[in-house]
């Protein structure tokens, strides 16, 4: 063959070789293009399942879902439209519309923006019919929470759009998804939210769907969120709300034999629907900024207060278990007693120099008896430090001074001092038991949350054990999925017989003691009043405020069905406000009705808002 023809053939072959080599590289060696093609063309679309409903312990519906309609618009597609007609159909004013459209325009011309959020079905009906008159606008359905109660906002919590942090933490969420932010909505988020379905689509270069990807081979169905039955008795809860009108504080009611929380009232509060619906963001900010009433604080779970006299029950129990006091043990009380050269513990039990024995000491809340018991517990050991740590450990078995680990997302530890605390304060070995004497009567360094104290009441009612307080009763109609942590009893390591002695005293409190005016005629209750001192700083001066009113109770004595703790901030004597509230809660729960209407009226007519005004003068000025 001609040499030049051969040259041309070689040129052809070299070119084809280069092309083949490049194709080989692209199609076989370089693997990245497969992913790129999928990323390009296959788009996921999530199907958001309906969120689970929430019921109370008697399967009364508390929370369901309500469809609402968002009016959306894609600015690029909007053509001139009859504004007046649009405003008529939607019921919004012109300024709002112009503002929303400007904002949408600024965000993106091609993407849909929210113009009017959360219209209800009847509000959107007119527009839905005439939407064809407004090109670029469309209506999008979504669900918000619908509440069938005015109560229990702190328990139910609320849902909002996920934030950046939550998006990063859990890949389940996409921007715009809703997530539980408080209450059971938060702690049972994974149960309530269900499982998203996924649909894969092939899309074209304009992101328009062409068809399902591989005939839906990889698609998954959405799973509806599971329903919850919570342990709250909603009637009891809202009854508690009404009792707390005009007061600050908390009521906790627990079923002792299960640890289920029957009522978790915090005051002041707000209706749960306040954080759902059209104004939820505005409302949330309002609540968040209210540092005077602090309605977002769950006082039942987070409030830390000196427990006062109910704490004496614990010192009694520990003293009995430690053997430092016995049924026959008596202390002389003469309006209190002197400990050390200059220190006097006051007492108002009225013994006037007589001997004080155990049940009576509870009945009359004798400070002498319990502070002496406390000193004996500590001094029973070579050093007060060792004794204090033994005491501390007993209290830890009741869940005090640490998180209770309820299944609600908030809580506080409270405080129970140990030897390290005083070592740091006074120096190691440089303090005596008497330095800490206020702990004996539930003052001093000791702090508890209302739910911790309610749990103590439940442990006493059970004579020695408790179930960690929890809000869950059933998941998807069954108890199987409940965390076994809540189903196992926790022992307090104090013998049952010692409980009986304490309970005898607590029953006497209702019969002849500090709560005798609150007693119920045919149900034997046990209780203990408490009055804890508190101070605040106003204009640089320490001002003593009215005492917190505290009451701890359970009943009936022999077959306890409910244990209650009531804290009323600055409510005065435990007997005046807290005891009637606790008794009314118990009666409401046990009988379903109130016979002590006198008590009820007294509680309803107690309004402490004037006292609260003193507490926060600064904030009031600002407002």
């Amino acid at each position, binding site marked *: *063959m*001609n040499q*030049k*023809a051969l*040259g*041309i*053939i070689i*040129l*052809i*072959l070299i*070119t*084809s070789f*280069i*092309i*083949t080599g*490049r*194709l*080989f590289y*692209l*199609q*076989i060696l*370089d693997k*990245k*293009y*497969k992913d*790129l*093609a*999928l990323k*390009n*063309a*296959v788009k996921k679309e999530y199907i958001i399942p309906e969120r689970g409903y929430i019921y109370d312990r008697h399967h009364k519906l508390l929370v369901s879902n309500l469809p609402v309609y968002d009016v959306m618009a894609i600015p690029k597609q909007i053509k001139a439209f009859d504004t007046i007609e649009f405003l008529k159909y939607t019921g919004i004013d012109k300024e709002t519309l112009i503002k929303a459209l400007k904002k949408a325009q600024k965000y993106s011309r091609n993407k849909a923006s929210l113009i009017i959020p959360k219209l209800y079905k009847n509000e959107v009906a007119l527009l839905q019919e005439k939407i064809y008159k407004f090109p670029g606008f469309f209506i999008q359905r979504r669900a918000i929470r619908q509440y069938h109660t005015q109560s229990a906002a702190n328990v139910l919590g609320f849902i909002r759009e996920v934030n950046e942090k939550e998006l990063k933490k859990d890949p389940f969420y996409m921007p715009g998804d809703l997530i539980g932010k408080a209450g059971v909505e938060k702690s049972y988020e994974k149960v309530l939210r269900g499982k998203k379905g996924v649909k894969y689509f*092939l*899309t*074209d*270069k304009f992101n328009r769907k*062409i*068809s399902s990807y591989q005939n839906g081979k990889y698609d998954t169905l959405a799973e509806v969120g599971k329903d919850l039955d919570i342990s709250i008795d909603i009637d009891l809860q809202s009854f508690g709300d009404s009792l707390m009108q005009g007061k600050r504080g908390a009521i906790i009611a627990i079923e002792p034999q299960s640890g289920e929380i029957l009522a978790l009232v915090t005051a002041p509060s707000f209706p749960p629907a306040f954080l759902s619906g059209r104004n939820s963001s505005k409302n949330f900010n309002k609540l968040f900024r209210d540092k005077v009433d602090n309605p977002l604080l769950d006082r039942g779970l987070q409030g830390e207060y000196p427990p006062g006299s109910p704490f004496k029950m614990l010192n009694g129990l520990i003293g009995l278990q430690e053997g430092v006091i016995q049924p026959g043990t008596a202390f002389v009380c003469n309006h209190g007693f002197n400990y050390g050269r200059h220190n006097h513990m006051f007492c108002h039990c009225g013994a006037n120099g007589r001997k004080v024995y155990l049940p009576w000491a509870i009945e009359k809340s004798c400070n002498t008896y319990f502070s002496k018991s406390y000193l004996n517990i500590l001094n029973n050991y070579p050093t007060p430090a060792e004794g204090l740590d033994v005491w501390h450990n007993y209290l830890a078995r009741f869940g005090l001074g640490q998180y209770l680990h309820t299944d609600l997302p908030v809580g506080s530890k409270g405080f129970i001092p140990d030897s390290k605390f005083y070592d740091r304060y006074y120096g190691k070995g440089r303090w005596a038991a008497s330095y800490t004497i206020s702990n004996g009567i539930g003052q001093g360094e000791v702090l508890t949350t209302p739910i911790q104290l309610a749990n103590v009441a439940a442990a006493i009612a059970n004579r020695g054990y408790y179930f960690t307080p929890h809000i869950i009763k059933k998941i998807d109609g069954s108890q199987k999925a409940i965390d076994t942590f809540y189903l196992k009893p926790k022992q307090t390591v104090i013998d049952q017989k010692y409980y009986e002695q304490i309970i005898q005293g607590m029953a006497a409190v209702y019969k002849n003691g500090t709560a005798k005016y609150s007693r119920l005629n045919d149900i034997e209750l046990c209780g203990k009043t408490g009055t804890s001192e508190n101070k605040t700083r106003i204009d640089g001066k320490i001002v003593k405020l009215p005492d917190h009113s505290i009451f701890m109770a359970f009943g009936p004595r022999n077959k306890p069905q409910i244990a209650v703790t009531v804290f009323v901030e600055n409510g005065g004597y435990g007997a005046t406000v807290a005891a009637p509230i606790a008794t009314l809660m118990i009666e409401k729960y046990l009988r379903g009705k109130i016979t002590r209407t006198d008590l009820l009226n007294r509680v309803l007519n107690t309004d402490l808002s004037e006292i609260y005004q003193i507490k926060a003068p600064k904030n009031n000025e600002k407002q």
Partner: protein
Amino acid sequence: MKNSRKAGIFDYDWISVLLFNLLVSIGIISIYSATYNETQTHILQSFYGKQALWFAFSYVLIIFISFLSLKSIKNNASLFYLIGLILLILVLIVGANINGNKSWFRFGSFSIQPAEFVKLLTVLGLAKLLTEPEFKITRYKNLLQATALILAPVFLILLQPDLGSAIIFLSLFLVFYRDGLSIVYYLLSFLIATLFITTIYFGQTKILISVMAIFIIVNLMTYVKFKKIYWLQTLFILSLSIITILGTNFVFHNILKPHQRNRIEIVLGKKKDDKGTGYNLKQALIAIGSGGLHGKGLLKGSQTKGDYIPEQHTDWILTVIGEQWGFFGTLTVVLLYTFLLIRLVFLAERQKQKFSKILGYGLIAILFAHYALNMLMVLGLFPTIGIPLPFLSYGGSSLWAFTLMLFIFLKFDAHRIEDW
């Protein structure tokens, strides 16, 4: 052995005809999947339907060619060339303006791109010129004449402007090589092209220094070996190189248009532009690359179905093949072209008459340029220019022009032993 029977349509080289049919068929299937649309109503409104119709009509052309007198083709070749030039002038005057290019004659809903047919007409003119008695390509006067003959349509096409087609015409210089022009011209052109590209890539000074260094080393080596310095040759090549290097920036920044600069820089990897000019290329590479070894199957290509590559049924048809049939598919197409081109070289070589041999090489040059530049462009090895893949890409003008060119040559080949 003398064949007394006059050659007919069945004496056409069957291998070439087979390859032609295979390529067009692959093209129609690819166009079908590139433009597939579930709501399509009428087959003749679809792209693949139209392409099939034009394929059928190309057989009318083939039959028409079989009635043509070879002698009259040869004798009127100069006239054909002139008609070609007139068509190119006419399209500048009365052509439809599509995307800023005046490349099309429009007859109602039907339009024709004259440049496609002018390729054949120019080849005929070239064959006529090169077969003139006393014509010698090695003679400068004749070389200049032949060069002018090629550059005339190139100039007119650049006025449209249609850079792609213009570049295709330059491939006709390959014919000169077969006609006896020294390879030195081609090597020098290759040198200029290489220097142009490397200068854009590495910058003027770096290339200037390296070129100097290379010349010193080469001269030293030749001196050591032959004890002699080739002053004249060295000086010539050196000055050509320096002019090229110094001229590169001027040509690049002052003569090339911004979009052309962009395309060169994208191929050189100096610029990333996935949204603008580089978008097509990026999507093309994704389509081809994601095809893998055996492809995703007919109508299964997500890139193709998503219409990610504009013009995927015309210039970028290789992406459809690459995505749906993978490496097997693209290799098949490459092999079909390679076979066809080499077969055509064999056919050209067996011509008794110079006219048909030049015609054959003209066809080979243009076909080769289309095939090579289109594929290199789609694969990101050559700047994006709008030229179709012969026989495969959608478009009546292109298909008919290539059919005419191929079958006129095949007719000459069939009658090669006859005295026409």
